[in-house]
């Protein structure tokens, strides 16, 4: 799982062009400037490509911060 968490962190950092060290549980659309509605599309596309999965609308609306992304992804691909 920790590997997946790292990949998620990496994807958020590269999508929004912020340093990876700054990403923590509290990182969200409130704390990251480029995380607006278009940022959300970019993030979903990047996560889907990186992790090889597909989110439903229900799941996408829950992807609001780093912690919730990890939770949703863990729920989809239990390992």
């Amino acid at each position, binding site marked *: 799982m920790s590997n997946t968490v790292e990949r998620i962190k990496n994807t958020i950092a590269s999508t929004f062009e912020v340093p990876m060290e700054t990403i923590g549980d509290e990182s969200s659309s409130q704390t990251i400037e480029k995380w607006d*509605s*278009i940022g*959300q*599309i*970019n993030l*979903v*596309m990047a996560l889907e*490509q990186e992790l090889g999965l597909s*989110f*439903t*609308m229900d799941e*996408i609306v829950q992807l609001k911060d780093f912690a919730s992304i990890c939770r949703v992804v863990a729920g989809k691909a239990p390992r």
Partner: protein
Amino acid sequence: MYHWALVSNTTIAPLVPRLKQAVKRNGTDCEFFVAEYGDSNKQIFSPGSDLYTFRPDLIVLYLDIQQFKPMFELSVPFETPENRESLIEEVLGEVTGMTKAIRKNTPAALLTNNFPVQPRTVLGIGLDPVYKNTLRHLNQRLYQTLSDLQGSYVFDCDGLWAEVGFEEYDRRFEMIAQFPFGVKMQQALVNEWMRFFRALNGLTRKCIVVDLDNTLWGGILGEDGPDGICMGDTPEGRPFRRFQQALKALSRRGLLLAINSKNNMADVKSVFQQHPDLVLRESDFATMQINWDDKATNLARIARELNIGLQHLVFLDDNPAERAWVRERHPEVLVVELPQDTARYADILSHCETDTLVVTGEDLKRAQMYQEERQRREFQAEAPSFEHFLNNLGLKVGIEPVGSALLERAAQLCQRTNQFNLTTRRHTVEALTQFTRSPLSGVLLMRAQDRFGDYGWSGLAITKVEGTHALIDTFLLSCRVMGKNAEFALIAAVAKWAGDRGCTHINGLYLPTSKNLPCKDFLEQCGLKKITGRAGEPGQAYEAKLADLQIQRTDHLKISMNL
């Protein structure tokens, strides 16, 4: 630096990273500008907006029908026919309002979408045709209106959806930010725009080079003999027949064909003369390299003989080893992966980067011109000296200001000419129109013919008057008239044009590219002297008094000017 703007009444920005990658693969430096949603109208309609100060070379205008008429497909079928008609008018009015404002404020090439027609809606077979026919009618009107506008082109967004399939319609992204494009459709859009980008920037392939055995025909001539190879109207022959028919159509459109094959020339010639099933004939090929040399060497010969660059060649060969070899030796050549299945051979020809924006009279005559060029080369090879060749060529040139009927050809010359092109400025039809409208600038076109045939419109010069100086903005010669000193006739015309407008000096500029070495010394040969250019202006500037200009080497020419 190429300036590419994306303007949309909905979301478009997520496409930019993909577009950047595609442009980078073409080796072009490009800057992007994006205006979306409500901002797009502000950018389009205010003359001093960021969009226009960005000085775009190309504007992609992506319009979503839902922004004009929400829930279009679910509401239109319930309207009366009159209301549907007025809705079409309304949308057309809005779109042309935008495109005309853009046209007024920038000479950039403009690329607008048509509207995608969904294959089905929830309303079913009783009402879907009403929705579909309304939208198709709107698309037709849109195409006519936008094609009438200069430098404006429509890309077939509807066709792209049909190709990738509507399952790529991403409802999630649409609901988040009105961005309906799934990943495949995003790539399809970028690929489609790149076709226009290449056509606008001289990056189009000009010649398709084909192998013979198991490519142009089925079987191996050397082993199976002329009766054993197949390309007839039979199941095993039809893939090759279809392939040849497609090549023939491309040749009609102005694309050059060439052969690169390991075979005996005499065997091939007799097939071309005697085989009943061939669609293509020897005269359809601008050149043939049929020998036992390696194919990379042959491709270099083909480029040299046709006087085009390796970057203008497409190579089609069924043998993966040959393809790998050519790829390694000539990365500039587009080496197409032929499908495993011969039935798909012809389809691959629509992915060969050979698009042209419009087809001009020169395109339709090109194959014939290269036939004439072959005879000319034979004549030159037999001539005792270059002077003798020139003096007996009977070259005649005519030079006149470009009229509206020839603007497309003039723009095509700007887009396609790489070698003899002093500044390589890719002026669009609209930019050329603006030069012709001003009394202080002019566009001259040159045509040429000799005893072997007509070269068509093959030279162009754009000159601007600044006080007593005439500035050469663009000076180019199509490769087919290079090496005959016709350029000296064109510079003479520029000088006369400038003198008629009270100029005492003539100024030129050489902007080096990787391809335009052939004209590096031209301005100096005409008596212009190197000077320090304007601050920040790249390239080498030149100047001379008009009176000091040396018009030389034109004794062999018959020149008529109608300035």
